[in-house]
């Protein structure tokens, strides 16, 4: 069952060619900053496209890669709710359009965040923490791995108890679900704590195994994302480019070709850095 999986993931990590997690952090920060400055759909829609392209060329094989879809759903949900709330009040064209654009901006932010999650392995990001934050970073890494395990054990316990005719949906059935899940979780936490101690955790001396290296591709990703964000910030300060189109009265938004290009520039990692192997 695992043979097919290993066949596709047998690509070695080539740290010289891969994008350093910090570069992804900068990329996500810049793309997020650009999204915050504008509600103009002519800039936000290309930004969505860029995020999607980066996700599809650079997503990791781990479970975190699925977060893109989850955040995209969040984004759609945010846009819908934001617009839906307005429909409850006094309606006019302007207020609906305003809500839609605000929702679009929030959605773009969420999508950028989802992309970051899917392209940068969270464990690698946490490994970057400076030495004195090592403890908190490790705690965060463990939390990341415990959540999916708990979900899996809830599923297994629920099946077993349902088979016994125990109604877990009812209040009285709660212990039949909670007790095994919590007890197993406690046991696992204890095993983990023992395992960490037995493997020398907390001895004080630490070295680092294969730290991620900065590559020319990482420089390119960082530089392009920085320039693109700078264009949006400059437009916001200078008040040009129609970043926040008027909705009272509702007018067709103007679009600066420079800013559209900047929004598309966030797709640069797809071109400058090697992506997923098939």
């Amino acid at each position, binding site marked *: 069952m695992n043979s097919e999986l290993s066949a596709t993931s047998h690509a070695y990590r080539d740290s010289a060619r891969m994008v350093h997690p910090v570069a992804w952090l900068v990329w996500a920060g810049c793309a997020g900053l650009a999204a915050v400055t504008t509600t103009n759909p002519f800039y936000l829609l290309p930004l969505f496209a860029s995020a999607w392209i980066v996700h599809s060329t650079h997503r990791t094989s781990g479970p975190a890669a699925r977060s893109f879809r989850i955040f995209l759903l969040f984004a759609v949900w945010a846009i819908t709710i934001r617009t839906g709330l307005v429909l409850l009040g006094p309606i006019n064209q302007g207020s609906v359009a305003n809500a839609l654009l605000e929702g679009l901006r929030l959605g773009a932010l969420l999508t950028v965040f989802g992309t970051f999650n899917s392209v940068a392995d969270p464990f690698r990001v946490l490994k970057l923490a400076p030495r004195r934050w090592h403890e908190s970073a490790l705690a965060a890494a463990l939390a990341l791995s415990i959540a999916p395990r708990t979900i899996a054990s809830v599923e297994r316990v629920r099946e077993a108890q349902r088979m016994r005719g125990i109604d877990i949906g009812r209040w009285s059935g709660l212990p039949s679900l909670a007790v095994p899940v919590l007890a197993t979780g406690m046991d696992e936490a204890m095993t983990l704590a*023992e*395992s960490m101690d037995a493997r020398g955790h907390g001895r004080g001396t630490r070295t680092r195994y*294969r730290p991620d290296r900065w590559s020319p591709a990482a420089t390119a990703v960082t530089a392009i994302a920085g320039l693109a964000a700078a264009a949006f910030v400059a437009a916001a300060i200078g008040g040009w480019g129609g970043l926040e189109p008027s909705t009272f009265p509702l007018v067709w938004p103007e679009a600066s070709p420079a800013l559209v290009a900047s929004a598309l520039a966030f797709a640069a990692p797809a071109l400058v850095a090697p992506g997923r192997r098939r």
Partner: protein
Amino acid sequence: MKTAVRFDDVTFFYPERAEPALVGCTLDLPEGAFVLAAGETGAGKSTLLRAINGLVPHFSGGDFSGRVTVEGRDTVDHPPRRLADVVSFVPQGPAASFVLDRVEDELAYAMENLGVPPAAMRRRVEETLDLLAIEPLRERSVRSLSGGEQQRVAIAAALTANPRVLVLDEPTSQLDPQGAEDVLAALQRLVHDLGLTVVIAEHRLERVAGFVDVVVGCRRGIPPIVGGAAEVLRELGLGPPVARLGVLVGWDPPPLTVRAARRDAVHLQLGESPRRVRPPRGDDLVTTHDLGASFGPLNALREVNLALASGEVVALMGRNGAGKTTLLRCLAGLHEPRPGMVSAHGAAPRAGLDVALCPQDPDMVLFRDTVADEVRATRAARRRGHQEVLHRFGIEDLQAIHPRDLSAGQRLLVAAAAIVATGAPVVLFDEPTRGLDASSKRRLIEFMRSHAANGGAVMFATHDVELAAEVAGRVVMLAAGEVIADGSPADVLGDSPVFAPQMARVFGAGWLTPEEVAAAVVPA
């Protein structure tokens, strides 16, 4: 020879326990020895293992007296992290012990903590990947691995710290016979080539008896005995099937390996090999028709056509990841067949009514304060009463005890009783012998036989060939999701180089258990 681990009159009580887990334990484990801790569950094997790297008493708490020294360091003054450069510990079920996500990072974790220079770390990771043949897994997430792969990664992660002593709690319990053989052979190589001291606990003696130099025989409430495998196992009344045969036919000392048994068997005259009479086939209780199942893009099962009939005990075997668990889940109506179908009396099986599945981990079921309440929590048991079910598993005397206070083997019996209390005629077990000691195993076997005799059907997934040889009337072998053999144990297992039980290896395919062989001996 130098001593690697020394126990000096160690007595230990877990917190709030009146009975000691270790009593007057005095022993010297020589450097470069392959040591087995044997004994029933509750006899103190795990405690002994955990005392070697100081998890007992530093993590367990409790009342510790005496002295344990490892390479000269006293474990009372040295908590586990201060022993991490001399002792590595691999706990049972290693999945919960993984700290990081990627295999390669997991291997480096202990070295990072020990401050090993990066260049040396890199080299040791590569060497260890090769040593345990897990190089293709290096980029994988540890959560995506099969049980056998996880076990090897855990051993590799323990080895990179370059310890002098390696301690493993039931390292082969999740592995198929070939996987177990590979892991044990790798351990033996470490002992021979690097002079490493290896200490393991293991119930399946047929797997390890041939490898070990020293056995520590743990007994409840009295000091352990230490010595050669033959004498200690005989003293404990334990042994692989060849040793059981040796006792039955009066070989002294009883052999511990198939090879030794073959030498002893040269002079043995055997009569006709037993034709196990198969009872007339009962009614089909659950059947599959061209059953398939998948996880995303992966095919877990393909075109499986099977029927479980009343009166049958069937063993389901195959290597790790062959699809055994998925097949059981489909039969129990817990996994949707696609394509094909599963039917019980013409309709999809209803979990808990037609078919009941006892999960691999008994702790997924247990939630009440006493064994009796646990069984009564199953809805159907309220009508029928819980005494009868407890009786069928031989655990009436445990009924007032909290399930968490029982041994792993006893917990499995309680979980099985709670599941069987549903009254479903078809009972499925997913690897019921993990961590199961000899006496709990005996009770499980008795239950399976009586359930089948009363018109039910039992199917159990297992890697334990000796259990299959003893209790199963039929063996189904899966490989890559397909049924590759379905027949009597003698036909399916008898001539397999990997799955043959010990008796078949000594006397030929028709022979399965020592009792059968002993009964057929022709007096000279």
